[in-house]
């Protein structure tokens, strides 16, 4: 019963802040609305007993959104604080597509005859996740780590204006001089 109330509260906040992301005028508010949406989903995961994953979602997403806010403000260019704006194209198409998708998904969710629950959760889910990661699913995590490394390298290659060896004054021992490239 308590779980139900908490779940519905979190669900409403989550969807409402998700909608707010595309309704508010300020980039900071949009980003942090998304952060709220993520945090509520993380808390719902706690309801499923997924302590570790729920808190990791909160941790990662707050961090991600804090960084994201910088990019939002940097790249939107013209939003000092609360400038009203509408930067959308094909709004009607988008609404239609999203609405149709929701209808299809909802129909599927309600009509499919979901199977009964099989098995029971382990006593210590965090421990069992650790065993899965270090045991039967190790290959998955090895792949993930390679992908993450490739992401770091390729993102840096894409984003850095200077080449590998032009490190902007590395020779005088001041690599962090912070001068913008001209």
């Amino acid at each position, binding site marked *: 019963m308590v779980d139900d109330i908490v779940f519905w509260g979190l669900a409403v906040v989550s969807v409402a802040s998700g909608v707010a992301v595309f309704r508010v005028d300020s980039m900071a508010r949009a980003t942090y609305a998304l952060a709220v949406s993520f945090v509520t989903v993380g808390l719902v*995961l706690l309801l499923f007993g997924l302590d570790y994953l729920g808190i990791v*979602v909160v941790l990662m997403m707050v961090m991600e959104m804090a960084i994201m806010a910088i990019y939002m403000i940097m*790249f939107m260019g013209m939003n000092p604080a609360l400038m009203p704006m509408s930067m*959308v194209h094909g709004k009607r198409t988008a609404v239609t597509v999203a609405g149709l998708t929701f209808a299809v998904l909802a129909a599927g*969710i309600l009509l499919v005859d979901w199977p009964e629950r099989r098995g029971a959760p382990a006593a210590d889910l965090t421990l069992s996740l650790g065993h899965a990661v270090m045991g039967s699913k190790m290959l998955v995590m090895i792949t993930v780590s390679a992908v993450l490394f490739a992401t770091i390298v390729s993102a840096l290659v894409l984003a850095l204006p200077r080449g590998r060896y032009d490190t902007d004054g590395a020779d005088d021992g001041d690599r962090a001089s912070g001068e913008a490239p001209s």
Partner: protein
Amino acid sequence: MTLQTVLLVAAALFCVGLYGAISQQVVVMVMMGLELMLNGVILAAGAFWWFLSPAPDGQVLLLVVITAMTVEMAMGFAVATLLHRSRGSDMTDMATDLSR
């Protein structure tokens, strides 16, 4: 709190994100839409795991979704930075010539 209700909430999150990803003009806002879609996926994956088969291995799927999200964000920022630097703009409409 049943499987259906949780999945409906997840679907709602997914579709709000889908709307954003289709309609927004700025790359970073498109990314916000994608993130919201993945948010729905995380919720759905958690619900499937809990209500259908709470086996230990299922949690790994969630980890993979979270990783996918970080990868998406890092690459998105890199591309947005590159676009912004080379064109002084990051509107998706102005990058359509990249597809030609």
